Protein backbone atom coordinates (compact mmCIF):
# COMPACT_ATOMS: atom_id res chain seq x y z
CA UNK A 1 0.00 0.00 0.00
CA UNK A 2 1.88 3.11 -1.16
CA UNK A 3 -0.85 5.76 -1.37
CA UNK A 4 0.17 7.52 1.85
CA UNK A 5 -2.42 5.74 3.99
CA UNK A 6 -1.21 5.47 7.59
CA UNK A 7 -2.58 3.50 10.51
CA UNK A 8 -2.22 4.82 14.04
CA UNK A 9 -1.80 2.47 16.99
CA UNK A 10 -2.65 4.05 20.36
CA UNK A 11 -0.98 2.03 23.08
CA UNK A 12 -0.08 1.93 26.75
CA UNK A 13 2.25 -1.06 26.54
CA UNK A 14 3.13 -3.45 23.76
CA UNK A 15 1.82 -6.95 24.37
CA UNK A 16 1.66 -9.91 21.96
CA UNK A 17 -1.63 -8.48 20.63
CA UNK A 18 -0.08 -5.14 19.70
CA UNK A 19 2.94 -6.89 18.17
CA UNK A 20 0.57 -9.01 16.09
CA UNK A 21 -1.27 -5.89 14.87
CA UNK A 22 2.05 -4.22 13.97
CA UNK A 23 3.10 -7.37 12.08
CA UNK A 24 -0.26 -7.59 10.28
CA UNK A 25 0.04 -3.95 9.16
CA UNK A 26 3.61 -4.47 8.02
CA UNK A 27 2.69 -7.57 6.01
CA UNK A 28 0.06 -5.47 4.23
CA UNK A 29 2.54 -2.67 3.53
CA UNK A 30 0.71 -0.22 5.80
CA UNK A 31 2.93 2.25 7.68
CA UNK A 32 2.08 2.57 11.37
CA UNK A 33 2.33 5.62 13.62
CA UNK A 34 2.67 4.47 17.22
CA UNK A 35 1.01 6.85 19.65
CA UNK A 36 1.99 6.32 23.28
CA UNK A 37 -0.96 7.12 25.56
CA UNK A 38 1.44 8.51 28.16
CA UNK A 39 3.18 10.85 25.74
CA UNK A 40 0.71 12.26 23.21
CA UNK A 41 -0.95 15.66 23.63
CA UNK A 42 -4.15 16.88 21.98
CA UNK A 43 -4.77 20.55 21.18
CA UNK A 44 -8.01 22.04 19.96
CA UNK A 45 -6.62 22.72 16.49
CA UNK A 46 -6.25 19.82 14.08
CA UNK A 47 -2.57 18.82 13.75
CA UNK A 48 -1.12 18.92 10.23
CA UNK A 49 -0.12 15.27 10.20
CA UNK A 50 -2.44 12.57 11.46
CA UNK A 51 -2.97 8.89 10.66
CA UNK A 52 -5.98 8.00 8.51
CA UNK A 53 -7.38 5.74 11.20
CA UNK A 54 -6.34 4.92 14.76
CA UNK A 55 -6.68 1.53 16.41
CA UNK A 56 -7.13 2.09 20.15
CA UNK A 57 -5.18 -0.44 22.19
CA UNK A 58 -4.74 1.62 25.35
CA UNK A 59 -5.49 -0.47 28.43
CA UNK A 60 -6.73 2.64 30.25
CA UNK A 61 -10.46 3.25 29.94
CA UNK A 62 -10.04 6.92 30.85
CA UNK A 63 -7.28 7.57 28.32
CA UNK A 64 -9.21 5.64 25.67
CA UNK A 65 -12.29 7.82 26.13
CA UNK A 66 -10.45 11.13 25.83
CA UNK A 67 -8.10 10.03 23.06
CA UNK A 68 -10.86 8.69 20.83
CA UNK A 69 -12.94 11.83 21.52
CA UNK A 70 -9.98 14.09 20.58
CA UNK A 71 -9.27 12.09 17.43
CA UNK A 72 -12.94 12.29 16.46
CA UNK A 73 -12.66 16.07 16.99
CA UNK A 74 -9.91 16.04 14.33
CA UNK A 75 -12.05 13.90 12.03
CA UNK A 76 -9.92 10.78 12.46
CA UNK A 77 -11.95 7.56 12.75
CA UNK A 78 -10.99 5.24 15.57
CA UNK A 79 -11.43 1.53 16.19
CA UNK A 80 -13.43 1.49 18.28
CA UNK A 81 -15.50 4.66 17.96
CA UNK A 82 -15.61 6.90 21.06
CA UNK A 83 -19.23 6.06 21.83
CA UNK A 84 -18.42 2.34 21.76
CA UNK A 85 -15.36 2.82 23.99
CA UNK A 86 -17.39 4.75 26.57
CA UNK A 87 -20.28 2.33 26.59
CA UNK A 88 -18.58 -1.05 26.36
CA UNK A 89 -15.81 0.00 28.77
CA UNK A 90 -18.42 0.52 31.47
CA UNK A 91 -20.27 -2.59 32.64
CA UNK A 92 -23.25 -0.63 33.94
CA UNK A 93 -23.80 1.20 30.65
CA UNK A 94 -23.30 -2.07 28.79
CA UNK A 95 -25.93 -3.87 30.90
CA UNK A 96 -28.40 -1.06 30.27
CA UNK A 97 -27.83 -1.20 26.53
CA UNK A 98 -28.00 -5.01 26.33
CA UNK A 99 -31.26 -4.92 28.25
CA UNK A 100 -32.67 -2.17 26.00
CA UNK A 101 -31.84 -4.25 22.92
CA UNK A 102 -33.26 -7.49 24.30
CA UNK A 103 -29.90 -9.27 24.52
CA UNK A 104 -30.06 -11.88 27.32
CA UNK A 105 -27.83 -10.80 30.20
CA UNK A 106 -27.61 -11.73 33.91
CA UNK A 107 -30.01 -10.03 36.33
CA UNK A 108 -28.30 -6.85 37.49
CA UNK A 109 -28.89 -4.22 40.17
CA UNK A 110 -26.81 -1.03 40.52
CA UNK A 111 -26.35 0.79 43.83
CA UNK A 112 -24.69 4.15 44.36
CA UNK A 113 -23.82 3.88 48.04
CA UNK A 114 -22.71 1.25 50.52
CA UNK A 115 -26.10 1.35 52.24
CA UNK A 116 -27.93 0.75 48.99
CA UNK A 117 -25.45 -1.99 48.03
CA UNK A 118 -26.79 -4.20 50.84
CA UNK A 119 -30.29 -3.87 49.45
CA UNK A 120 -29.04 -4.52 45.90
CA UNK A 121 -27.40 -7.78 46.98
CA UNK A 122 -30.50 -8.86 48.91
CA UNK A 123 -32.57 -8.08 45.82
CA UNK A 124 -30.33 -10.25 43.62
CA UNK A 125 -30.12 -13.02 46.22
CA UNK A 126 -27.21 -15.27 47.20
CA UNK A 127 -24.85 -16.05 45.70
CA UNK A 128 -24.36 -12.69 44.03
CA UNK A 129 -21.42 -11.27 42.13
CA UNK A 130 -19.93 -7.83 42.77
CA UNK A 131 -17.86 -6.34 39.96
CA UNK A 132 -16.18 -2.98 39.46
CA UNK A 133 -18.06 -1.07 36.74
CA UNK A 134 -14.75 -0.43 34.99
CA UNK A 135 -11.84 -2.84 34.71
CA UNK A 136 -11.16 -6.37 33.54
CA UNK A 137 -9.27 -9.60 34.05
CA UNK A 138 -11.50 -10.56 36.97
CA UNK A 139 -9.76 -7.96 39.12
CA UNK A 140 -11.62 -7.02 42.33
CA UNK A 141 -14.58 -9.22 41.46
CA UNK A 142 -16.20 -10.96 44.39
CA UNK A 143 -18.67 -13.82 44.76
CA UNK A 144 -20.90 -13.09 47.74
CA UNK A 145 -22.39 -16.19 49.37
CA UNK A 146 -24.10 -14.71 52.43
CA UNK A 147 -24.92 -11.52 54.33
CA UNK A 148 -21.76 -11.69 56.42
CA UNK A 149 -19.57 -11.74 53.32
CA UNK A 150 -21.63 -8.94 51.80
CA UNK A 151 -20.96 -6.81 54.87
CA UNK A 152 -17.22 -7.41 54.69
CA UNK A 153 -16.86 -6.89 50.94
CA UNK A 154 -18.90 -3.69 50.95
CA UNK A 155 -16.81 -2.40 53.84
CA UNK A 156 -13.58 -3.23 51.99
CA UNK A 157 -14.77 -1.60 48.78
CA UNK A 158 -15.85 1.50 50.67
CA UNK A 159 -12.43 1.67 52.34
CA UNK A 160 -10.77 1.87 48.92
CA UNK A 161 -12.14 5.38 48.85
CA UNK A 162 -12.35 6.03 45.12
CA UNK A 163 -15.59 7.14 43.46
CA UNK A 164 -15.29 4.10 41.21
CA UNK A 165 -15.61 1.76 44.19
CA UNK A 166 -18.53 3.69 45.62
CA UNK A 167 -20.65 2.39 42.75
CA UNK A 168 -21.84 -1.17 43.21
CA UNK A 169 -22.62 -3.35 40.22
CA UNK A 170 -24.34 -6.48 41.48
CA UNK A 171 -25.25 -9.46 39.30
CA UNK A 172 -26.82 -12.82 39.84
CA UNK A 173 -24.32 -15.68 40.03
CA UNK A 174 -25.06 -17.74 36.94
CA UNK A 175 -24.78 -21.47 37.60
CA UNK A 176 -22.84 -22.64 34.58
CA UNK A 177 -20.55 -25.48 33.53
CA UNK A 178 -16.87 -24.99 34.44
CA UNK A 179 -16.46 -22.79 31.38
CA UNK A 180 -17.66 -19.67 29.64
CA UNK A 181 -17.43 -18.52 26.04
CA UNK A 182 -15.71 -15.67 24.25
CA UNK A 183 -16.69 -14.69 20.71
CA UNK A 184 -14.57 -12.16 18.87
CA UNK A 185 -16.50 -9.85 16.59
CA UNK A 186 -14.93 -7.68 13.90
CA UNK A 187 -17.49 -5.58 12.06
CA UNK A 188 -20.22 -7.91 10.85
CA UNK A 189 -18.22 -11.09 11.37
CA UNK A 190 -17.55 -13.39 14.29
CA UNK A 191 -13.94 -14.23 13.46
CA UNK A 192 -13.49 -16.88 16.16
CA UNK A 193 -14.86 -18.16 19.44
CA UNK A 194 -13.48 -20.21 22.30
CA UNK A 195 -14.43 -21.93 25.49
CA UNK A 196 -12.54 -20.84 28.60
CA UNK A 197 -12.45 -23.62 31.13
CA UNK A 198 -11.44 -23.14 34.76
CA UNK A 199 -12.07 -24.56 38.21
CA UNK A 200 -12.20 -20.92 39.40
CA UNK A 201 -15.63 -19.31 38.90
CA UNK A 202 -13.79 -16.52 37.06
CA UNK A 203 -12.89 -17.99 33.68
CA UNK A 204 -10.64 -15.20 32.37
CA UNK A 205 -7.74 -16.38 30.20
CA UNK A 206 -5.67 -13.84 32.15
CA UNK A 207 -6.37 -15.94 35.25
CA UNK A 208 -5.09 -19.11 33.60
CA UNK A 209 -8.26 -20.57 32.12
CA UNK A 210 -7.71 -23.38 29.61
CA UNK A 211 -8.99 -22.50 26.15
CA UNK A 212 -10.37 -24.50 23.26
CA UNK A 213 -12.16 -23.53 20.03
CA UNK A 214 -15.94 -23.13 19.96
CA UNK A 215 -18.17 -23.09 16.87
CA UNK A 216 -19.08 -19.56 15.75
CA UNK A 217 -22.21 -20.68 13.92
CA UNK A 218 -25.67 -20.87 15.41
CA UNK A 219 -26.91 -19.21 18.58
CA UNK A 220 -23.46 -18.26 19.86
CA UNK A 221 -22.46 -16.32 16.76
CA UNK A 222 -25.89 -14.78 16.39
CA UNK A 223 -26.00 -13.59 20.00
CA UNK A 224 -22.43 -12.27 19.88
CA UNK A 225 -23.27 -10.19 16.81
CA UNK A 226 -26.43 -8.86 18.47
CA UNK A 227 -24.45 -7.86 21.56
CA UNK A 228 -21.71 -6.21 19.51
CA UNK A 229 -24.27 -4.34 17.43
CA UNK A 230 -26.10 -3.24 20.57
CA UNK A 231 -23.04 -1.38 21.89
CA UNK A 232 -22.33 0.21 18.51
CA UNK A 233 -20.23 -2.40 16.72
CA UNK A 234 -16.57 -2.60 15.79
CA UNK A 235 -13.87 -4.83 17.27
CA UNK A 236 -15.42 -6.42 20.35
CA UNK A 237 -14.98 -9.54 22.45
CA UNK A 238 -18.33 -10.79 23.69
CA UNK A 239 -18.24 -12.97 26.81
CA UNK A 240 -21.13 -15.37 27.35
CA UNK A 241 -22.18 -17.96 29.88
CA UNK A 242 -24.31 -21.06 29.46
CA UNK A 243 -26.92 -20.61 32.16
CA UNK A 244 -30.08 -22.53 32.98
CA UNK A 245 -32.04 -20.11 30.78
CA UNK A 246 -29.61 -20.51 27.85
CA UNK A 247 -26.76 -18.25 26.74
CA UNK A 248 -26.39 -14.89 28.47
CA UNK A 249 -23.96 -12.10 27.59
CA UNK A 250 -22.10 -10.84 30.64
CA UNK A 251 -19.45 -8.58 29.10
CA UNK A 252 -18.59 -6.84 25.86
CA UNK A 253 -14.94 -5.77 25.78
CA UNK A 254 -13.94 -2.84 23.54
CA UNK A 255 -10.13 -3.29 23.66
CA UNK A 256 -9.96 -7.05 23.75
CA UNK A 257 -6.96 -9.26 24.19
CA UNK A 258 -6.80 -12.10 21.69
CA UNK A 259 -3.54 -13.98 22.20
CA UNK A 260 -5.30 -16.94 23.80
CA UNK A 261 -8.11 -16.90 21.23
CA UNK A 262 -5.72 -16.82 18.27
CA UNK A 263 -3.67 -19.66 19.77
CA UNK A 264 -6.78 -21.77 20.48
CA UNK A 265 -8.44 -21.26 17.08
CA UNK A 266 -5.67 -20.34 14.65
CA UNK A 267 -7.72 -17.33 13.56
CA UNK A 268 -5.85 -14.34 12.14
CA UNK A 269 -7.46 -11.91 14.56
CA UNK A 270 -4.82 -9.20 14.12
CA UNK A 271 -5.21 -9.34 10.34
CA UNK A 272 -8.98 -9.01 10.67
CA UNK A 273 -8.56 -5.97 12.94
CA UNK A 274 -6.15 -4.26 10.53
CA UNK A 275 -8.36 -4.95 7.50
CA UNK A 276 -11.39 -3.59 9.36
CA UNK A 277 -9.48 -0.48 10.48
CA UNK A 278 -8.33 0.20 6.92
CA UNK A 279 -11.94 -0.01 5.73
CA UNK A 280 -12.95 2.50 8.42
CA UNK A 281 -10.09 4.81 7.47
CA UNK A 282 -11.04 4.80 3.79
CA UNK A 283 -14.77 5.46 4.29
Amino acid sequence: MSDGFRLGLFVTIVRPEEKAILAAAESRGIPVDRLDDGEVTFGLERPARLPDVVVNRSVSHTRSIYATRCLAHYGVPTVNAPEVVELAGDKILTSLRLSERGVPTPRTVVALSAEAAHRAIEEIGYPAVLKPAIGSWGRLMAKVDNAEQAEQIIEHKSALGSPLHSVFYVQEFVEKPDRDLRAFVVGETVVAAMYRRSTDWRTNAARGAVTEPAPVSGELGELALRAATAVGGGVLAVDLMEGERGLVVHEVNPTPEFKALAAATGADVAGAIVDYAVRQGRR
Partner: protein
Amino acid sequence: MTHCPECEASVTTNEKIPGEVFPCPDCGTDLEVLGTAPFSVQPAPKEAEDWGE
Protein backbone atom coordinates in the same frame (compact mmCIF):
# COMPACT_ATOMS: atom_id res chain seq x y z
CA MET B 1 21.99 -7.17 26.79
CA THR B 2 21.08 -5.29 29.95
CA HIS B 3 20.15 -6.10 33.54
CA CYS B 4 16.84 -6.44 35.35
CA PRO B 5 16.46 -3.40 37.63
CA GLU B 6 14.91 -5.62 40.31
CA CYS B 7 17.21 -8.66 40.50
CA GLU B 8 20.09 -7.67 38.18
CA ALA B 9 19.71 -10.82 36.06
CA SER B 10 20.91 -10.52 32.46
CA VAL B 11 18.13 -9.85 29.96
CA THR B 12 18.58 -9.88 26.20
CA THR B 13 16.77 -8.15 23.35
CA ASN B 14 15.50 -11.18 21.36
CA GLU B 15 13.86 -8.87 18.79
CA LYS B 16 11.89 -6.96 21.39
CA ILE B 17 10.56 -3.55 20.46
CA PRO B 18 10.19 -0.33 22.48
CA GLY B 19 7.15 -0.43 24.74
CA GLU B 20 7.07 -4.22 24.82
CA VAL B 21 6.42 -5.78 28.20
CA PHE B 22 8.00 -9.10 29.15
CA PRO B 23 8.78 -10.96 32.38
CA CYS B 24 12.33 -11.07 33.71
CA PRO B 25 13.47 -14.68 33.15
CA ASP B 26 14.88 -14.83 36.68
CA CYS B 27 12.57 -12.95 39.06
CA GLY B 28 9.45 -12.69 36.91
CA THR B 29 9.09 -8.92 37.31
CA ASP B 30 7.33 -7.41 34.30
CA LEU B 31 9.80 -5.22 32.41
CA GLU B 32 9.13 -2.65 29.71
CA VAL B 33 11.58 -2.05 26.88
CA LEU B 34 12.68 1.60 26.90
CA GLY B 35 14.95 1.40 23.88
CA THR B 36 16.77 -1.11 21.74
CA ALA B 37 19.96 0.76 20.81
CA PRO B 38 21.21 0.54 23.44
CA PHE B 39 18.86 -2.05 24.93
CA SER B 40 17.37 -0.73 28.17
CA VAL B 41 14.44 -1.71 30.37
CA GLN B 42 12.50 -0.43 33.34
CA PRO B 43 9.85 -2.01 35.56
CA ALA B 44 6.58 -2.11 33.58
CA PRO B 45 3.84 0.30 34.63
CA LYS B 46 1.64 -1.02 37.42
CA GLU B 47 -1.97 -1.88 36.61
CA ALA B 48 -4.19 1.12 37.25
CA GLU B 49 -7.76 1.02 38.50
CA ASP B 50 -9.24 1.75 35.07
CA TRP B 51 -7.10 -0.77 33.17
CA GLY B 52 -8.85 -3.52 31.30
CA GLU B 53 -9.84 -4.94 27.98
